[in-house]
């Protein structure tokens, strides 16, 4: 079977070689190659900076997780459990679902802001940052409110 494939491949190559001179293509323009190299430099710099920030933030993320765990472990789970801490008309599953969704959204928004270099104060396209920051803070606030409702703070 392999030999058949090899023969077939050689035959296709032979036919392709007959066409090769017609398959030539122009070279990319020099100025476009220069622009590509510039774009590569910008992207490489952006990614190196981003990776540097993630490395710098890693201990803080660990500390925040530890803090959350401590808060979670020290919650006053009395009779009736956490349901007693919810508003009377609030379904605990819905409240928890809302909180998780709000946290997800917040995480995504902050990841996007991070990618757009907002944290370094770089200008993004179309002056979009202020709206993004506002939306992100709103969704963070929303997630904290949901969390407060769940823990009854």
């Amino acid at each position: 079977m392999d030999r058949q494939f090899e023969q077939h491949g050689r035959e296709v190559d032979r036919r392709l070689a007959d066409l090769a001179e017609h398959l030539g293509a122009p070279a990319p323009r020099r100025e476009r190659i220069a622009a590509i190299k510039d774009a590569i430099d910008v992207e490489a710099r952006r990614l190196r900076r981003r990776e540097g920030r993630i490395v710098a933030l890693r201990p803080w993320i660990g500390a925040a997780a530890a803090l959350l765990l401590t808060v979670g472990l020290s919650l006053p789970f009395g009779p009736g459990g956490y349901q007693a801490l919810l508003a009377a008309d609030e379904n605990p599953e819905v409240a928890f679902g809302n909180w998780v969704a709000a946290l997800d959204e917040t995480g995504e928004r902050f990841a996007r802001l991070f990618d757009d270099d907002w944290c370094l104060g770089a200008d993004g396209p179309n002056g979009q940052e202020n709206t993004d920051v506002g939306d992100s803070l709103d969704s963070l606030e929303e997630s904290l409110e949901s969390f407060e409702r769940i823990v009854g703070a």
Partner: protein
Amino acid sequence: MEPAGLERLLRRARRRDPQALHKLVDMYSARLFGLLYRLTGSRETAEDLLQETFLRVVRMIPEYRHGGRFEAWLFRIAANLARDHARRQKRRGRPVALDGPGGAGGPGRSDLADTGQPDPVGELLKKEAEQRVSAVLQGLAEAEREIILLRHFSELSFREIAELLDIPLGTALARAHRALKRLKAALGEEV
């Protein structure tokens, strides 16, 4: 470039060393552009996709492991981008742009590889043949065109191309065979 040299270059590129990344552009842009140009039929589009290919390389190179051939990975990125572009064009109902030789953004003869002494009649005939080949290539099924052009520009083996496209080797060869038959039929005795 010998494998050890390429490995060293890729190690630097993984750290996003600008000089190493520029070297990759110098080494591969002509062949990648040829593939993208013949797949899309447009110089502008091919140059845009060439830039996007290298930007993806910058983003994804830390995950690349130098197990197989770097070319296979690189040309897969370019071929996927060309495929996505064709799908977007189809959805928008736009025909594939076919730059005419010498036309705006088109591959004028002067752009093509130097063939030695000028021969106006020969050049004209060649130009016409290239134009016909371009038109016939654009008329082929996308999957057939892709195989022929990948083999021509990437210099990967049919086995590597089959792996790259995630199809059996027999299918890749059958598609190449069909495409060449059609090309030959469309171009008559010329080839």
